[in-house]
């Protein structure tokens, strides 16, 4: 292989695979027709870099998150889901004792109700920000007769249905009552139930994220979503603070409760609580940093400026 041929082949390989699938052959011919000067090499290297930084979905097959606002919205959504899972674990952990603790300790109750209020606010904010995105993605997909977006958006209800059926199966067939099965069977059933829920949540989150990443939605919809995403993130900050406060108050007023092994896995409440707070903190930090990047993106903060690439 001559040096020129090898160089042209190397230059072509600098481009992403999907780009080469679409333009590779015609671009290779063009490279053969152009003399291989340092300018040409430099120009192609920059072009390849551009194609990697900002891929062009001319084939509709590339999973892309071209716009920072879109990336931010998806990141906040994923962080919120992780936060919700930690919150549900917290609620599951204390649900048998919450009435007793709240009744006897008003400050514990206050922290608990702040957490619940924050959860409602965050949920509403995610719905306000997320539903227009889902609607726009679905409407555009139906116009373009794309199947992938509706199929991906169908994953959450299907996953929920699967989990509900599993719940019914576990509750009525595997472990119909506490007395009828051994502790180990009950433990396995519980772990399966929780594991299925987490799997369903992960599958749903991934499917929605991929759908939103692929969908042709106007940048203005994502810019609008930044507002509710901010509210959701602030609610996450408040909720994290509330859970930490809850733990500190319980530690001060009911220390025996934190060291008790009343969790489903027979480990101490404090160990669970620390894990849940860690997930909440990480989720909140990820959401906050994604938001900052979203606001810093061109056209992200003010809604003015760059309309970006219209179709993506």
């Amino acid at each position: 292989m001559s040096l020129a041929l090898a160089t042209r082949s190397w230059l072509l390989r600098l481009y992403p695979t999907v780009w080469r699938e679409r333009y590779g052959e015609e671009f290779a011919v063009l490279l053969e027709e152009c003399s291989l000067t340092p300018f040409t090499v430099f120009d192609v290297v920059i072009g390849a870099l551009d194609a990697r930084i900002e891929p062009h979905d001319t084939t509709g097959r590339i999973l892309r998150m071209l716009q920072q606002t879109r990336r931010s919205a998806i990141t906040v959504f994923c962080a919120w889901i992780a936060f919700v899972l930690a919150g549900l674990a917290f609620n599951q952990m204390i649900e048998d004792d919450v009435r007793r603790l709240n009744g006897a300790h008003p400050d514990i109750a206050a922290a608990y109700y702040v957490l619940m209020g924050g959860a409602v606010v965050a949920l509403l904010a995610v719905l306000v920000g997320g539903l227009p995105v889902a609607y726009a993605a679905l409407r555009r997909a139906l116009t373009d007769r794309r199947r992938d977006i509706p199929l991906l958006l169908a994953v959450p209800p299907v996953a929920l249905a699967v989990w509900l059926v599993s719940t019914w199966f576990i509750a009525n067939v595997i472990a119909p009552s506490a007395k009828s099965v051994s502790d180990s069977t009950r433990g396995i059933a519980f772990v399966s139930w929780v594991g299925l829920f987490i799997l369903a949540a992960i599958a749903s989150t991934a499917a929605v994220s991929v759908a939103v990443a692929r969908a042709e939605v106007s940048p203005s919809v994502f810019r609008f979503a930044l507002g509710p995403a901010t509210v959701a993130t602030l609610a996450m900050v408040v909720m994290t603070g509330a859970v930490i406060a809850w733990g500190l108050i319980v530690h001060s007023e009911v220390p025996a409760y934190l060291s008790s092994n009343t969790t489903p896995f027979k480990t101490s409440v404090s160990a669970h609580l620390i894990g849940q707070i860690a997930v909440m903190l990480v989720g909140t930090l990820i959401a906050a940093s994604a938001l900052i990047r979203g606001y810093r993106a061109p056209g992200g903060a003010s809604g003015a400026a760059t309309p970006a690439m219209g179709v993506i």
Partner: protein
Amino acid sequence: MPNEPHEPNVPNQPDDLSDLGRFSDPSLLILASLAGGSKHGYAMIEDIAQMAAVRLGPGTLYGAIARLEQRGLIAPLPAEDRRRPYRLTAQGATVLREQLAALQAFATTGLRRLAIN
């Protein structure tokens, strides 16, 4: 004669090329080149070099082609001997006309001011 592909289904686009960043000038040159008839990559480079005394590199050319195709301003035609020609779409012609009209207005104003001074 090969069938021409349908106009790409794209949403309404802004009526300028300013959001194409460093590719806005090459994009305008490509649109102007294709206004004279469909061409493949090398023919575009030669035509633009003759028309505007600017020689686009292959990387710049295809960076702009990908963007223009995605926006539905140009459309690929069936490949001919590994070369793929592109044609100007109706939307591309509209954008080109608006861009050239804006440039003409700019040039007219500038020349008028020069004449006054």
